[in-house]
């Protein structure tokens, strides 16, 4: 187990390291450079050159990279080209917002997805199963942004029940914060819940026909306990799926934040792309990637916990 963890941690670090190179190079592959954006409409070549120098963009890329990594390892991600505010500060400001959104979405997704998945697997062939399946399929087939548009159309424009958009910090007004987060979280959570529902259902159905469930039945236990036996073994799949879905969740957050004007990470990334704000873009993408890698590390550890076979020997996946 310890070896397995160590191995996972090492591969995670390798992944992050490679990811940082990809981010760094990728950002610089975008046509147009930050200096040009900053220099504005008039874009005086002298000013452009000065800005490039100021942000070290005139150096060879590998030197830029090593400088960046050296600084980043000390927690210094540079300053935003747009407003010279330290990137770390910006990231810290934005992260809680996206975490709240993602957290709520995961809550929604897990609550709906897991419940629906379990019910539909246990009551296979029933109306509830049918309904859950239809929900799952539709959830998979509807783009986030359209769902967001429909939600705004229905709840904000037609019913005028919820605000169309905007963000209020939780610390400022918790009630208002939640009121404004409900729609985005629902929109973001729906896709997740659809995936989770389907995976839970499939995993649980698979496990329910496993030999050990038959053994449990032969002991004379109730149906609920049978399901419990199977569920314990299905959770590994569900947890893994949750980890892998995180990428989709971050992607969905970008769109959702865009539509509901939530100043989170997704919006930060999109804005940074259009402003060619390299330091912010690098920082934000790296944090997103780190989040993904960490969550999947956590998932693997949870997996190991849920799956006793893993506790001794190594090598999941």
């Amino acid at each position, binding site marked *: 187990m310890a070896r397995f963890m160590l191995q996972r941690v090492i591969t995670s670090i390798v992944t992050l390291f490679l990811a940082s190179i990809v981010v760094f190079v990728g950002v610089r592959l975008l046509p147009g450079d930050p200096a040009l954006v900053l220099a504005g409409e008039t874009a005086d070549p002298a000013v452009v050159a000065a800005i490039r120098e100021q942000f070290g963009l005139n150096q060879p890329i590998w030197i830029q990279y090593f400088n960046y990594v050296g600084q980043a390892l000390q927690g210094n991600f540079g300053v935003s080209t747009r407003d010279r505010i330290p990137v770390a500060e910006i990231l810290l400001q934005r992260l809680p917002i996206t975490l709240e959104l993602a957290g709520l979405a995961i809550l929604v997704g897990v609550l709906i997805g897991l419940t629906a998945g379990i019910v539909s697997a246990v009551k296979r062939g029933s109306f509830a199963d049918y309904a859950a399946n239809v929900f799952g399929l539709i959830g998979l087939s509807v783009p986030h942004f359209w769902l967001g548009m429909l939600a705004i159309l229905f709840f904000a424009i037609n019913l005028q029940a919820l605000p169309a958009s905007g963000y209020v910090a939780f610390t400022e007004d918790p009630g208002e914060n939640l009121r404004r987060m409900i729609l985005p979280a629902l929109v973001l959570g729906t896709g997740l819940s659809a995936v989770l529902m389907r995976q839970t259902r499939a995993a649980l159905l698979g496990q329910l026909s496993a030999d*050990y469930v038959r*053994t449990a*039945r*032969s*002991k*004379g236990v109730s149906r609920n306990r049978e399901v419990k036996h199977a569920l314990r073994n299905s959770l590994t799949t569900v947890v893994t799926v949750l980890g892998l879905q995180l990428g989709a969740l971050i992607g969905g957050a970008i769109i959702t934040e865009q539509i509901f004007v939530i100043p989170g990470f997704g919006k930060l990334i999109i804005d940074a792309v259009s402003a060619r704000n390299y330091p912010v873009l690098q920082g934000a993408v790296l944090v997103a990637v780190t989040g993904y890698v960490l969550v999947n590390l956590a998932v693997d550890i949870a997996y190991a916990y849920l*799956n*006793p*076979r893993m506790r*001794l020997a190594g090598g999941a996946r």
Partner: protein
Amino acid sequence: MSVLEVEHLRVEFGTENGPVIAVKDVSFRLEKGEILSLVGESGCGKSTVAMSIPRLLGDSHVTLGGSVRLNGVDLSAFSEKRMQAVRGKEISVVFQEPMTSLNPAYTVGSQISEVLLRHEGLSRRAALARAVELLELVGIPDAQRRTAAFPHELSGGMRQRVMIAIAVACNPVVLIADEPTTALDVTIQAGVLDIFRRLRDNLGTSIVLITHDLGVVADIADRVAIMYAGRIVEMASTAAIFAAPTHPYTRGLLGALPSRAVMQTDGRRRLTDIPGLVPSPSTDPDECQFAPRCASASGACTAARPAADLVAVGHSVSCYHPAVGAML
């Protein structure tokens, strides 16, 4: 009164490709402290019989016919709830696959305790203590420590013994063992069979032992029922089956054993095999289903199904042309 009476058991599975009549008509009795062996080739319906006695085939695609009586009480009328009280307590089952029949996510101890908690009303602690005793009973060394082990930490033989511990936890009246040793090595198989023998001797457990290994049968069974295509074609004491097999199929099975090789005139060793293929389980024609593969088949065989006849005391056979006497 027999402990277990199975009468005209019929099991039909509805599948996408039409019905599968896995068990067509099976009747037998089991006495107290008796080991009855159900023998037959793959797919002849042995497991289905085993599973349908405690009604473990809980699927909507299954149609059950006939009756199962436990100590004279007809179980077929029982609700699912009442059956739950019977399973694990009065009838318990040991399955073939020791690798997959235990839940990988729970410790061995808790899986044994579960049945005790369910039927014996023991406290968690008492159940665990009893689990240790049971593990000792089935010959697992260092039982105390093993209760905390997960199935994957045990070898196949040990897992199979854990399965047996679970099955015998509540001193069942009837133990159904579905190919309990098939996946095990011979040296380990011998140990497991030994446990069955001791259970029968010490606790008076009645055992239905399903197998396709005639060696196992010879070793342990009191009586043998030979199954072919969803029916019992011959039933007799173990000694009688081996000494005087009467049904051509039984004779074919015995002849196919490598230990019964015959030397041909050209000096080649040879086994007698049964030509042809097993019939499809989707139909149940009124004829002897072994007839197409049978050397002694006649027109009568395909005209109507032969009924079970007694050829000797306690020796019944369903055949128009029963053979007499020992095999060569």
